[in-house]
């Protein structure tokens, strides 16, 4: 079973393989094949219900994100908690005004506001949609940003870039997992704002360049942005999340 720790290892392998598209595809293929087996083994009616056959909630002592639309929304809620927490730390810094010029302060303050709004939206939406939110709503996660140097402009902006690019790839990959057109549209409304963020942060880091939509993130041959499965995203996001949870039933 693909638990959280296993995912960490898998994605780090992909990151080190970097731009080698062939090995990336190979690893993705293996991941998908493994997931397919898992789903076949566990359940043969995976996507027929709105809340999936596996509701979010504690399984074997850890919170599992579950499957189906509510599992995907819970996954998005986890990512938005991460982003909101990071930017809250940034705008609360005593040296915020010293580290960043006024344009950068405006952008980071906006990102703080947007991500907190996204987080609160998912909390309320999930509370309304889950049959039993008292046990099925993902709790407030705990974070560890000790790898970020909060007295360094480049460390903070670099982390912001990673989080925003990850968010874009996560929503792009999650779209096909959603069965409700309403939820799909909501994810679409959010992902383009994440992409606007990613572009702006990249542009701040390297202003006189094409990095806002650079070849490192937008495929130079077909013009497509990244799209990644939860099993590829969670290990990246998980490097900042200390609350253990699993995503056993998401691909």
């Amino acid at each position, binding site marked *: 079973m693909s638990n959280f720790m296993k995912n960490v290892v898998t994605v780090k392998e992909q990151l080190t393989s970097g731009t080698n598209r062939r090995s990336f595809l190979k690893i993705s293929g293996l991941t998908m094949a493994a997931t397919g087996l898992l789903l076949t083994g566990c359940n043969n009616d995976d996507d027929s219900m709105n809340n999936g056959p596996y509701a979010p909630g504690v399984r074997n002592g850890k919170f599992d994100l579950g499957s189906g639309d509510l599992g995907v929304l819970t996954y998005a809620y986890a990512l938005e908690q991460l982003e909101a927490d990071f930017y809250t730390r940034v705008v*609360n810094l005593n040296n915020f005004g010293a580290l960043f010029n006024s344009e950068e302060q405006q952008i980071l303050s906006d990102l703080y506001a947007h991500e907190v709004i996204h987080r609160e939206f998912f909390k309320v939406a999930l509370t309304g949609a889950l049959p039993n939110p008292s046990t099925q709503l993902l709790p407030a996660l705990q974070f560890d940003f000790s790898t970020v140097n909060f007295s360094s402009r480049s460390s903070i902006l670099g982390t912001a870039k990673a989080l925003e690019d990850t968010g874009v790839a996560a929503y*792009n990959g999650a779209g096909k997992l959603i069965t409700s*057109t309403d939820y799909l549209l909501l994810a679409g409304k959010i992902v383009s704002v994440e992409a*606007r963020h990613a572009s702006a942060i990249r542009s701040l880091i390297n202003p006189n360049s094409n990095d806002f939509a650079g070849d490192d993130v937008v495929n130079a041959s077909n*013009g497509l942005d990244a799209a990644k499965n939860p099993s590829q995203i969670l290990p990246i996001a998980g490097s900042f999340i200390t609350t253990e949870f699993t995503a056993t039933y998401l691909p």
Partner: protein
Amino acid sequence: MNLLKFIESFTDDHLMNSKGSRRDSFGQFGQLGKNLALASIPLGLAAFTNKAFASDIGPTPSTPIGALQLALTLEYLEDEFYRLGLESGVIPTGGRDEKVFMQIAKHEASHVEFLIAGLGASAVAKPTFDFTVGGAFDPFNTTGIGATAAYQQFLVLAQAFEDTGVRAYKGQAGNLISTPDLLTAALQIHSVEARHASEVRRLRGLKGWITGNQRGAGMPSATQAVYDGEENVTQAGFNTSTVNNGSLGPAIPGLAGSESYDEPLTTQQSVNIANLFIV
């Protein structure tokens, strides 16, 4: 009539926003004269608008193929616009602007190629575009308003096209839900359009995201159709304009609610915007 309103309102805005050199002013008055001349010849104008309507594209079907056909038309428009822009010499060379538009042009060309390959026999033909909208704009300096003035108009149109692209793709998501691979590809283009939109807006001195239904400084009122509806703050019944982070962080402005969500355009709304540039 859309086209008439478009031309008139742009003329007003253009004058109000003018702050340029004497040469620019002459250029603008020349433009005004042209538009007045156009408006004062009812017969000629009628012929002109009829012609425009005859070539209008219709709404695409609410199917996966239809969604990609609409996308292809919009990508044709963007691809040709940036290609002509780069050829025209109005984009300042050697710096950020040129790098930005070369990258955007590369992506739009790839998107056209990608969609044509994906649609196969269902690919729609490329329409004939008029980026001057009957002479209201001169983004490529073809009538000699000067490269600087032309580039400002180029930027205005680029912003409108990118923000439209984001909203148009989003509006097609529901039509693609039954075809996961096509949906994913469309999402992968959608987020690239959003990256473009953010950068073009920032080149123009705006925020990378849309606040309320504000089209932003220097955008002619005719582009308002691109922004109407963006002011929505109700998401699945949740009011995004009243969120606060309590004691955890600074107060959150109400307008951040609309900024944090981009809104879709319907097929008809997207087609109406595209038709302004199709002759």
